[in-house]
C-alpha cells in the first residue's frame, strides 16, 4: 500500500527541478475532453502523453484539456502550442501517433504534417 510518506520523498526529489522550471514557458498540449472526445478515446491519448513526457523528463511541457472543438468526427483531437509558433491541430489520434508527436514535434520541433487536420481533411 502506498503512503503519503512516499509523497514527501517525491517532494524532496522534485523540488530542485521545479525551481528550475519557474521562468521557462514550455509547450502546451491540449486534449479535447468532451463526450465526443472521451467516447473516441481521448483518455488513453492523454495518458500516453503523460507517460512519454515523464519518460523523457520533459518537465516544461503542460498537458491539459478543452471541451468540444466542434469537429467530433475527427476525435480524438489534440492541439499543440509551442511558444512563438502557430497552433497545430492533430486529429484521429492513437497512442502510436502520440509517441511520434512527442519525439518529432515536442522534442525536435518538427510538425508531424501527416497527422494534422489539414492533411487528414485533404485525404478524406
Amino acid at each position, binding site marked *: *500500500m*502506498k503512503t*503519503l510518506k*512516499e*509523497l*514527501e520523498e*517525491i*517532494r524532496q*526529489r*522534485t*523540488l530542485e527541478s*521545479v525551481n528550475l522550471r519557474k521562468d521557462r514557458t514550455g509547450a502546451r498540449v491540449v*486534449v479535447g*475532453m*468532451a*463526450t*465526443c472526445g*472521451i*467516447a473516441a478515446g481521448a*483518455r*488513453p491519448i*492523454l*495518458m500516453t502523453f*503523460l507517460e512519454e*513526457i*515523464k519518460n523523457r523528463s520533459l*518537465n516544461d511541457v*503542460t*498537458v*491539459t*484539456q478543452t*471541451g*468540444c*472543438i*466542434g469537429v*467530433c468526427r475527427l476525435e480524438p483531437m489534440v492541439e499543440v502550442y509551442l511558444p512563438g509558433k502557430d497552433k497545430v491541430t492533430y486529429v484521429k489520434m492513437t497512442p502510436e501517433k502520440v509517441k511520434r508527436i512527442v519525439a518529432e514535434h515536442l522534442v525536435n520541433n518538427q510538425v508531424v504534417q501527416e497527422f494534422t487536420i489539414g492533411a487528414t481533411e485533404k485525404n478524406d
Partner: protein
Amino acid sequence: MQDLSLHILDLIQNSIAADASHIELTIYEDKDKNWLIVDIEDNGKGMDETAMRRATDPFYTTRSTRKVGLGLPLFTAMAQRCGGDVVLESIKGKGTRIKSGFQLNHIDRPPFGNLEDTITTLILCNPKIEFVYIHKVNNDEFKLDTRDIRQVIGDIPIEHPEIINWIKSYIKDGLKEINGGVQ
C-alpha cells in the same frame, strides 16, 4: 461509453464547465444488496428548474460548438438499462448533485474500467480544482482528497508528472485493497 470510468469522466466535465472548485465522487458497491451507487457533487454554478428539466434531453446543450449534449442522457440510459435511475439535484449558484443507483450484477452493467486513469486525468487537467474520491466496497473504504496531497507536496504543483504518477498508483493500490486484492 465503454465503461463506468468513462461515463464518470464525462459527467465530471459538466461540473468543470460549471466552474466548480470542489468536486466529490462517491462510488459505493453494496454487494449484499446488489446495488451500485455513483454520486457526483459539485459547487459549480448550478442550474435553474428549466435547465435541470432539459439536462437529460439529448438535444439540449449549453455549448455552441454542436447541437447535442449526450453525456447525461447516455449515463441515464445506462442506469435505467441496469434496473436503476439517475436523480438530479441542483440549486442555482450553489451546485449540482447527480445521484444514481443501479443493479451491481445486472448483465448490462458496464465494467468499472480504469478509474485511476479517470481521476488522474481530472487532476492533471484541472490542477486548481479540489477532488475528493471515495470508493466503498461493502464496509471497506478508499479515499483520496487532493487537499491532503497538497498539504504534503507544498509548493510542488500537483500536476507535476511525478506527483500525478504517484496518485495513479495510489488509487490503483487502494482499489485493489478494498477489493480484497483482486481488481
